[in-house]
């Protein structure tokens, strides 16, 4: 078995009395494409938000590249209200802000696109390069980082060329068509030089042809940038075609996991998510 880049262990996320993610354990292997599927409201995006530091998990731990990245356990009021499992299994608290996690090498896209909509396409990509640039506020203001800036601009243009967006570089991001905004968001995530890319419904709102292009593109960038990819997606064609491993979530709980064949034949998954086709009943 290949080395795991991301290891999520017994993660529970409880908001007040609502358990959005319940005792989720999953692994993303190095160089793998892993999909997280499930009906609406199953807690998929919440799981993403925990991994990227937007929410602090209520209980459980997350490891990245073999190192502990997050860990938490219920304290204070939550200790009494906690409805999840594995209470008392985790003793430490380790919380990281989203920017620290991005710096470790986890980049993400958002379900409802979050581009810097008043800025140009090129600026959007350049902003993602900001954190890794060798500069400080003085060298940047007085243009002493000229070479670094030039390097950033070249790298940003390369990323736009891969996405075939170079001719739009001076357009305002918010004015672009939906599909292009999605592609730009992936280009921006790649600009942070990630090791693990989290895609939250990358094909949402795309037609079959665009979805197919996206499928090819995901495989292409995975190989080109040596990435591992963890994605939430509803398009079953895309998921079944390229995933190495699929996890199925329902009401915050993992109900199945395995290869695409295993998952698509699992009766619980069919009942909860894929649905029984009318023809099959005959």
């Amino acid at each position, binding site marked *: 078995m290949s080395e795991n880049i991301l290891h999520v262990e017994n993660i529970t996320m409880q908001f007040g009395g609502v358990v959005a993610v319940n005792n989720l354990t999953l692994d993303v292997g190095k160089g793998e494409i892993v999909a997280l599927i499930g009906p609406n409201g199953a807690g998929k995006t919440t799981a993403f938000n925990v991994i990227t530091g937007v929410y602090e998990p209520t209980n459980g731990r997350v490891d990245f590249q073999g190192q502990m990245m997050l860990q938490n356990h219920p304290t204070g009021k939550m200790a009494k209200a906690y409805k999840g499992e594995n209470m008392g299994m985790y003793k430490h608290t380790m919380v990281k802000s989203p920017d620290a996690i*991005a710096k470790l090498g986890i980049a993400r896209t958002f379900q409802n696109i979050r*581009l*810097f909509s*008043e800025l140009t396409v090129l600026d959007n990509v*350049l902003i993602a390069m900001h954190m*890794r640039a060798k500069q400080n506020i003085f060298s940047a203001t007085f243009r002493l*980082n000229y070479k670094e800036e030039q390097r950033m601009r070249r790298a940003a243009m390369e990323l736009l060329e891969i996405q075939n967006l170079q001719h739009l570089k001076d357009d305002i991001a918010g004015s672009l068509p939906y599909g292009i905004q999605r592609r730009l968001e992936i280009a921006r995530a790649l600009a942070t030089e990630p090791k693990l890319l989290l895609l939250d419904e990358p094909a949402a709102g795309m037609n079959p042809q665009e979805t197919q292009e996206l499928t090819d593109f995901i495989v292409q960038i995975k190989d080109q940038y040596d990435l591992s990819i963890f994605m939430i997606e509803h398009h079953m064609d895309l998921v079944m075609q390229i995933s190495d491993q699929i996890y199925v979530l329902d009401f915050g709980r993992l109900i199945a996991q395995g290869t695409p064949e295993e998952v698509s034949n699992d009766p619980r998954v069919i009942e909860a998510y894929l649905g029984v086709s009318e023809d099959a009943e005959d």
Partner: protein
Amino acid sequence: MNPKVKWSIAAVLILLLLGGLYMLEQILPANSIIFTVLQKGAIYSLIAVSLNLLNGFTGLFSLGQAGFMLIGAYTYAVLTIPPESRAAVYQYYDGGIIDFALPVPVAMILAGVAAGICAFLIGLPVLRMKGDYLAIATLGFAEIIRAIVQYDKLGPITNGSNLLRSFPVFHSTLFPFIVSGICIAVICLLINSSYGRAFKAIRDDEIAAEAMGINLFMHKEMALVTSAFFAGIGGALLAMFQMMVQARAFTSAMTYEILLIVVIGGIGSVTGSVIASFLFIASSEWWLRFLDEAQFIGGMQVPFLRPGFRMVVFSVIIMFVVLFYRKGIMGTKEFSIEGIYRFFTKGRSKAGKGAK
């Protein structure tokens, strides 16, 4: 357009402006209202641009600018009053405890640094808040600064609630223009740098900015400290312009004036802020002054005109701007040589097409 051509046109325009100002000073009497407007307009431009860096480019709704100006003005004044004048200025505090005077440029930079340090400390608790809460907290801190400076026990340094005077002032309109110009140029360089892009990213979407690895708190601190630094220098210039400083003048009303300039000029436009400052100062100090005095047309007194009526008209104008020009004079656009060039060439190419 070729950047070399662009920069040389900009250089020529700046020289023309400075030359024009110099000529004006030779021709007109020194007490002409035009100089008051130009000097104060230049100073307010700097302060408005510094506030715009926060409000317009980083998306932090801060109302602490008067506090930072006050620190700048006091730092400058306290450090530059010549020792021989101190006995007269600090008459209630035995001549104060400082008996040296620093050169003007050093004191001006220290004025900015003092305001910057203060902003850094205020930022530690305040920048964890957002939106209206941040506005109220910064407003509160500005008032606290004003109260502390007037504290009697600090009298040997700040002269308590008495005014500070006798410090070196400028005699030429060129001085505030050059200082403000340099400071605004630095702010523009910052805005167009990698850090400026990060600030704009925070303004557009904090969650996305954070997911792209931008440390929100650190970048907000940077924006606040930079803004306060230039507000401090602006405060020092204002002290020089007024030839005296008194903490009582740096009220929240002053912050609102500057906020108004930023809104009228366009939140997120540097040139908008500059244009709006001159317009604002010219109307409040000059064009609308007649409304405060009784005027007669053919022996009949015009109704309503009395001291204070200027502010009524002013408020109405502002309401119109906010209602109908919500984006201000410039919106988020910038007034640039390239823009004018494009405007004219576009016009020409259209005309050319028409001829065909």
